[in-house]
């Protein structure tokens, strides 16, 4: 393999592969950012149950990571992202997005501040050329570190108890904060973050620590039925939490070929993050103009009657006029309702007279349903334990 033929070789394996491979009874793997990732280990329902009722572990290694260091790291990130990165306290994390000049979203991600001039960006897509271009004129170094960091996501109401049993006292750790622990001669960083909308933690380490850490975590978590989960179960949990995923709920502006496909933070319901007072950032002028003129699209949460997932469905106004489309949908075991995320033309954002056309597969035959939907608040599932500090001991 060389730089030109990398695509010819099989997907990479994560540092946890030796453990996940033997547990993956279905051998169900999918590609994620050049790695193979477990879609389901054996039973999606049980894996989702572990997220909501026990402790679940998801291999996060393929997540794309950039380290941003230097005296002007905060200034660089303030110009790059729409949120105020300078105000993010050291030891904290925030969710953020960045846009192109037209104010269209390139990606969302989480930003970890490890030091005054030391940040980590975690995101779905690769952006090194954009980050480097954005760094021109700033005293900052940007480096992709995806392969240098191994990570697991430990999620579920029992996750704090599992960590406690593993020797990591996280009882005082608040949401979006992080703390560092010694582990077998190295360090493990624990952040109270996740993608499930539940109590949960993300655990960051060097690849060399991956297998010993996995073994230690699973041994400690056994009493709580700790269980590895695949992307299918995680996707169900994130839909319940109302979270969006790049290239599933919106297409990054730099990948969109059709001019009308890219979306702004307003159109994705993320405008609450925009800090208009921090100074200029990329896309600010376009977004200010959009704020004044109004947006074309809106991202909404939908309550769908019945129990058939509305995945891939088209929305209609008055059953006739196309009004939008569903980007993610599921029957939610946690709220016992069929829910959906959808993009609708902005004028239909209130949801009046909005209908979804579902093709329901019933014993190998599609049946067309036209059902009235209601626009509802996200998250669909929002347990208090997600925020409680200290979290409950189970």
């Amino acid at each position, binding site marked *: 393999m060389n730089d030109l033929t990398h695509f010819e070789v099989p997907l990479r394996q994560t540092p946890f592969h030796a453990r996940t491979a033997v547990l993956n009874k279905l051998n169900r793997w999918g590609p994620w950012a050049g790695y193979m990732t477990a879609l389901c280990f054996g039973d999606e329902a049980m894996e989702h149950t572990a997220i909501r009722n026990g402790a679940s572990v998801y291999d996060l290694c393929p997540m794309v990571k950039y380290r941003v260091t230097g005296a002007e790291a905060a*200034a660089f990130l303030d*110009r*790059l992202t729409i949120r105020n990165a300078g105000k993010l306290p050291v030891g904290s994390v925030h969710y953020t997005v960045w846009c*192109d*000049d037209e104010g269209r979203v390139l990606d969302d991600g989480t930003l970890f501040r490890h030091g005054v001039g030391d940040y980590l960006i975690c995101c779905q897509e690769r952006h090194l050329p*954009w980050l480097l*271009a*954005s760094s*021109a*004129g*700033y005293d900052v170094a940007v480096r992709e570190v995806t392969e240098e960091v191994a990570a697991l996501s430990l999620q579920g109401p029992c996750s704090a108890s599992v960590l406690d049993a593993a020797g990591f006292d996280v009882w005082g750790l608040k949401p979006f904060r992080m703390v560092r622990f010694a582990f077998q001669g190295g360090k493990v960083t624990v952040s109270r973050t996740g993608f499930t909308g539940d109590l949960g933690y993300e655990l960051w380490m060097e690849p060399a620590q991956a297998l010993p850490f996995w073994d230690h975590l699973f041994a400690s978590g056994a009493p709580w039925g700790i269980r590895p989960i695949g992307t299918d179960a995680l996707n169900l949990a994130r839909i319940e939490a109302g979270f969006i995923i790049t290239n599933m709920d919106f297409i990054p502006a730099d990948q969109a070929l059709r001019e009308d496909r890219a979306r702004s933070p307003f159109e994705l319901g993320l405008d609450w993050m925009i800090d208009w007072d921090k*100074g*200029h950032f*990329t*896309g*600010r*002028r376009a977004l200010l103009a959009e704020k004044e003129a109004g947006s074309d699209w809106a991202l909404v949460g939908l309550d769908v009657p019945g129990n058939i997932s509305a995945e891939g469905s088209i929305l209609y106004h008055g059953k006739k006029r196309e009004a939008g489309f569903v980007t993610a949908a599921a029957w939610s075991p946690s709220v016992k309702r069929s829910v959906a995320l959808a993009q609708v033309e902005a004028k239909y954002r209130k949801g009046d007279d909005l209908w979804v056309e579902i093709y329901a597969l019933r014993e190998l035959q599609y049946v067309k349903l036209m059902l009235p939907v209601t626009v509802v608040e996200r998250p669909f599932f929002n347990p208090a334990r997600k925020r409680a500090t200290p979290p409950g001991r189970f």
Partner: protein
Amino acid sequence: MPSFSAIVIGGGTNGLACAGRLAAKGCRVVVLEAGAVAGGGAAVREFAPGYFAPALAHTTRGVDARVMAGMALERHGLGFHPALATCVLNAEPLSVMRGKTTGADAAAYAALIAKLSEFARVLAPFRGLTPPRLTSSGNEWGKLARLGLGIRALGKADFREFLRMILINVADVAEDELTDDRLKGLLAFDATLGAWLGPRSPNSLILLLNQLACGPDILVPKGGMAALAAAMVRAAEAAGVVVRCNAAVARVLVTEDRACGVELESGEVLAADKVISAISPRTTFQKLVGPRHLDAGFFSRVQHIRSRGGAAKLHLALTAAPDVPDLQARMVIAPSVRVVEEAFNPVKYGEVPKAPVMEFVVPSAFEGDLASEGHHVLSAIVQFAPHAPKAGLEAARAEMLENTLAVLEAHVPGLRGLVAHAELLMPQDIEARFGMVGGNWHHGELAVEQMLFLRPLREAAQYGTPLPGLYLAGAGSHPGGGINGSAGWNAAGMVLHE
């Protein structure tokens, strides 16, 4: 803190034209010029004790008629010597005046220049237009439609010929229509003058059309180029413009996402409602504004505005008149298309051509006071010089000077014996002294992909920029450089329009 309605950065001919037009409409304008005198490329330079040469530009195809009239430049003392003939130096020199020449190709040449002039005539009005946007709103549709119709009105055969030739290379045209190498070389030289293109590079003919659109004649102002700049300064001042020299701008100041003034290198701060930059767009955005006030995509596209200079400037102090057929002609040494192309090839690799091509004038033949009695100065534009010489600036300059003098000596025997002092400005020297990025003639290459609504970039092609309150007015904007003031005049129109 002094406050103006507009600050113009850069006192070149475009900055002065812009300031003059704004002041005439009642704006309080200050022009901030880094150098000791205004004029930019149209200045005079004492390159050796007692010898003065035009700093960069030594001829013009005429000041934009709107600038001439709008600033009443004649009234402020601007006049021109009779148009210069071009003398192609060769074993048998050939004299050319517009389309008129002698020899076997005389008729063909006249016909070709007539055809090209006709194309230039329908293109000329575009030079005075704010480039259209590729959107449905905000364009001067009426004007555009009229200009489009103007092209269409060429008649069916000419229109087809126009479409065939508009993006063609000049070498093909020369080969198709002419047989005399002297004329072919001249055509190739003229089209690529100030460009980073060889005659065989695509789209090289359009640059010749652009020059013809500026004017058919090659002119030297009475009193020299500096007199042209001085007349513009007088006219601007008469309209109320304050022209401040030795006032290099270090930074554009921004408050509330709006350009609101500038800070000079001295630390002095000046406030204004509008800041208009008549210096290179790249310098404007990269150095004066900086990334903090600009979107990342735009800022990185600014870094990629191509701005390679291929023209070097030679000044010779001569102890006597050079032996040329006509001291008051423009002399061109460009023996054939091939020689011009081969002079371009090495600069692609950062090397110096063995046999550069060039044009020169003898300014002291027009103005007696540029050198002492009996002495002369020779001003040459020599192409092509590498903008990023592999051998380093010093070595490349020495080699370029030697090769240039050797070519000159071959065409003007005895010249080297008259040289009391020689100065060669390489593109890098020109950048250092005049601030033209890469030493480029147009503050950014004038090439089809950097023309009209792409000049200097889509987001700044209508003289406004993404930073509210900041405008561009220099050669880097439509319609490009040369001593004519068109870009500055257009920009002022846009500023007034808003």
